[in-house]
Structures are given as structure tokens and as C-alpha cells.
């Protein structure tokens, strides 16, 4: 052991006592939270929670279903016919046209920084035309973050609802955002109507909201616990809900004619090669107690699956395996990888189709929506 290594060990040991003290009451608290999570996981999950998954499914049009959600036939309509040719490149540095109040459903929306002190600009991609343009909305500009809901909101999602300041509904028709004054606004991109969902409610909301399907908007109650949520849909008053019951307890499964298997959601914080579980037993290595596992080394995560034959993810091209591999950083191009009939290696570059190039801001949300709309029903590029 060299001297520095020894000193490092000593430094850690010297500070063991500075670590937070163990509190017995924590055990009760954590046990309660855990049991609540477990119970709700196995309970009938609300329709809205189902819709989160269905919204994701609709985005990709694949044979993916939600575990423990028996009513998963409720598939909202996708955002219409799209004529986006692939590959598509974001027009970096160009002046974009104003899309107006009613551009129609969007395939994606993101925020573009405009310099110190200025509110970011909302940029959308119109689903039916593939046109990029700016949206005439003013948003709360303190550290804006965004989430498109075709990604769905999964337990353990790294961006909880209270951080999502601008959200696009699964059908691309409605945009929820917080005004500079902190007021929640929902704008209909087809009718040009705007709503203030919480204006008449008797509770305050935390900043941030997220769509769980085309019409249901979800958020958290200000000063409430993490179980205190609300749901709103056009034409109704917002309703208070239990967040745990609302959003917990589903896995994604990939279904095929021969059976089905769970798809573990990509690691929430690291962009590592994903493992796909194949219930058919056709691919991968068998792991006792878990089934057939299939690693996809050229992708650093899976954004989605189309028809069990097309994996969508970020290409883990030039980073070292141990490097910080944040998909929104660096140059991880989004690719669609055809796995139909392929062996387990999946290393043939010819199988990759670039669908969104580097340079698109907030590439995850962008690509997820774009891919969901831009690939045809057979999983190929339209």
C-alpha cells in the first residue's frame, strides 16, 4: 500500500464520526415509506398511472404493455401523421419562425437559453410538418427544466414533477408551463385556448407539473408531503390524489408472439449498456431467477422499443466505460438499432440509423418524441 493510499484510508477513518448519526426513528419512518410503496405497488393502479405508461407506449407504437395494469388497452391517439424525414438535424444557429398560438400538435418542445437574465425561448417541432419554430409563451425562467410525457414518469425518475416547468402532453396537443409569475398555464396548441387550472383551487401547487396522458396533468401540493398530489383535466376542477397510488408500481414488458419479459428501465443516473430481458428465451444468457439477459453494448441506454425489434438509445461511441456518461452531455447520438434476427452482439454499425443528431438541445426529450413520431408502424424510418 503506498503512502497516499494509506493517507486516504486514514482520512476516511478519521471522518467516520462525522457521518450522520443513526437514528432509530429513521427505521420506523423508512419502514413505513417502504411498506406503503410495496402495498401500492401491488394494488390496483389508478387509470392515470396506467396512462403514463400507455402514453409512453403510444409514443413508440410497439407491443409494450404495462405490468400490473390490466386496463392497458386504453391507448391515446398519437400526435397525428408525421412527415419527418430522417435523419433530421436541428437548425443550430438559425433564426426560427414563430409558430403562433395554434401550430397544431408538437412532436417535441424544448427550451433554448437566451443569455444572462433573459427567459429561455420555447422551441417546438410541429408533428405534422416537421417544422421547427418558436412558441409565443413566456415561461418561468428560473432554471427551467422540461419533460415530454411520451417518456412517461417512472418511479425513481431523476426529474420529479416539481422540477418539470414545461411539459408537453402525450398527444402533443397541450403544453403546460409556469408563467413568469409562477402561475400554471395550459395552452392548447390546436384551439389556441389557454387555461389556468389551479386558479380556483383551494391549495397551492409546487412549481412543476407533468402530463400523464393527453388530458391529465399532475403536480404536487405546495407545503404538502411527497404523497400530496393533484390531478387536473380540462373542464374539471383539480383533484387531490395520493402520489404513491398515482404513479407507482409498473414495469415495462416487451411482448412478442412467443411470450413476454420485463424490460428493466435504463439506469436512472448512468448511461451504461442496457440489459434487455427476453421472455422468449431466444436471445441472451439465462440467469437463474431472472430469465434471459441480453446486453446491448453499443447503446448506453434504451429510450424505447418498437415492435420488439428496434431498440432506441444513445450511442455510446467514444466514451470510456467508466466515464460519466450523461446522455444529455457530450455527443451521444441517438440511434435506432435493429435487433430483428440479430445475434446477441449487436455490434454491426450498419444496423444503426441515426435519427437525431448531436446539437439538439435536451436531446433525450427531443429524440424520444421525435423517434416516437418519426418511425413508421413497422419500426422503420419514415
Amino acid at each position, binding site marked *: 500500500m503506498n503512502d497516499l493510499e494509506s493517507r486516504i484510508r486514514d482520512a476516511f477513518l478519521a471522518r*467516520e464520526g462525522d457521518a*450522520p448519526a443513526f437514528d432509530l426513528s429513521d*427505521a420506523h419512518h423508512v419502514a413505513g415509506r*417502504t411498506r406503503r410503496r410495496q402495498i401500492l405497488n401491488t394494488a390496483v393502479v389508478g387509470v392515470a398511472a396506467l396512462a403514463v405508461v400507455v402514453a409512453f407506449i403510444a409514443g413508440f407504437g410497439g407491443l409494450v404493455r404495462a405490468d400490473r395494469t390490466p386496463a392497458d388497452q386504453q391507448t391515446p391517439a398519437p400526435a397525428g401523421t408525421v412527415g419527418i424525414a430522417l435523419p433530421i438535424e436541428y437548425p443550430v444557429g438559425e433564426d426560427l419562425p414563430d409558430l403562433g398560438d395554434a401550430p397544431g400538435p408538437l412532436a417535441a418542445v424544448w427550451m433554448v437559453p437566451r443569455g444572462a437574465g433573459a427567459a429561455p425561448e420555447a422551441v417546438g417541432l410541429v408533428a405534422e410538418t416537421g417544422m421547427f419554430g418558436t412558441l409565443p409563451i413566456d415561461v418561468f425562467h428560473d432554471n427551467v427544466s422540461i419533460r415530454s410525457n411520451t417518456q412517461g414518469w417512472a418511479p425513481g425518475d431523476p426529474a420529479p414533477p416539481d422540477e418539470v416547468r414545461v411539459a408537453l402532453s402525450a398527444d402533443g396537443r397541450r403544453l403546460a408551463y409556469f408563467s413568469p409569475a409562477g402561475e400554471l398555464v395550459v395552452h392548447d396548441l390546436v384551439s389556441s385556448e389557454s387555461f389556468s387550472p389551479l386558479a380556483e383551487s383551494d391549495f397551492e401547487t409546487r412549481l412543476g407539473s407533468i402530463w400523464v396522458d393527453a388530458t391529465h396533468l399532475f403536480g404536487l401540493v405546495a407545503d404538502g408531503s411527497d404523497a400530496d398530489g393533484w390531478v387536473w383535466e380540462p373542464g374539471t376542477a383539480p383533484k387531490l390524489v395520493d402520489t404513491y397510488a398515482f404513479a407507482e408500481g409498473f414495469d415495462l414488458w416487451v411482448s412478442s408472439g412467443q411470450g413476454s419479459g420485463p424490460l428493466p428501465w435504463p*439506469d436512472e*443516473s448512468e448511461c451504461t449498456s442496457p440489459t434487455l430481458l427476453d421472455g422468449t428465451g431466444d436471445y441472451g444468457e439465462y440467469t437463474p431467477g431472472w430469465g434471459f439477459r441480453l446486453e446491448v453494448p453499443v447503446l448506453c441506454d434504451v429510450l424505447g422499443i418498437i415492435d420488439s425489434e428496434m431498440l432506441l438509445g444513445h450511442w455510446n461511441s467514444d466514451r470510456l466505460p467508466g466515464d460519466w456518461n450523461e446522455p444529455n452531455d457530450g455527443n451521444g447520438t441517438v440511434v435506432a438499432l435493429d435487433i430483428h434476427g440479430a445475434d446477441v452482439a449487436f455490434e454491426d454499425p450498419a444496423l444503426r440509423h441515426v435519427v437525431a443528431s448531436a446539437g439538439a438541445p435536451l436531446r433525450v426529450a427531443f429524440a424520444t418524441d421525435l423517434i416516437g413520431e418519426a418511425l413508421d408502424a413497422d419500426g422503420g424510418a419514415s
Partner: protein
Amino acid sequence: MRETLTVNDATSSGIERLYLQHAPSALRFAYFLSGDQETARDLVQDAFVRVAGRFRYLRQPDEFDAYLRRTILNLNASRLRRLKVERSSLAREAAYPVVAVAERDPGLSDELWKAILDLPPRQRAAIVLRFYEDLSEGQAADTLRCSVKALNQLVVRAMKTLRARIGEDRS
């Protein structure tokens, strides 16, 4: 010797027992990753709820501590990402309380400790896993979900940085 866990560990009493058993070491691990007591407590509690809540789905329940460690790592990475997004990471890191200097290692240890806290997250994690948790190269690499080679690269980079910070002449 590693304990064998059963389905009964998913009950309330089992969960409490699990927490009592794993929390102290998990809190130290989270503290060394985050450098902040409150953050460490939050990380451990959130990680525990996630891992214990999915107990029945764990591929290897006997590896509960490894799952917990990895989840703490992931949650900490998510936290750092959020800080980065909010552009307050530097301010937050700078605001971390400076911990007391141990009597047995005055001066240099404090300097080294600050240098460790300044390491990039994965380098710091690699250092904690190897030199505090005493995991093998393979175990540490598995926790970080990287190859042994990549792990060693992280450790080498971290050691290089630390040497530069504390000064070779003091070694």
C-alpha cells in the same frame, strides 16, 4: 458472513431490521460520497425505500448491501445532475460544512479531505469504494457499472489529482 434474506424481510419488521443492519454503513458511505450529513441521510433513506420496496424483484437478495450501495451512488449522481442543471453545483459544494479535523491527522488530513470532496463524482466514488469500503476491484467496478480497467483509470486519475493537491513533497 453474508446473511440470507427471505421474503419475510419485506415485512415492516423485516424492513426495520434491514434498515437497522445496513443504515450505519450506508450513512457513512453516503456521507463520503456527498460530503454533507443531511444529504447523506436523504440519500440513504431514499435508496433504502427503493431497494427494499422492490425486494421481491431483486435478482440476488443476498446482495442487498450491494444494491443499496449502487442505489445510493445513482441517487447521488442524480442529485449532482440536478445541481448541475440548476447551475448551483459549485455554490452547493462550496457550502458544504467543513468537517472537524481529526486529532490523529491534523492539517494534512483536512487538506486531503477537501481534495477528496473536490474530486469528480465517479472518481470520488471509486476512491470510497476501494479505500474505505475495501471492495475488490471487481466489486467496485460492478458497483460503478464499469470495467475493472475503467475503475483503475478512475482511481489513477483521482490519485493523480490528490497528489497534485496535497503536494508530492509531503508524501
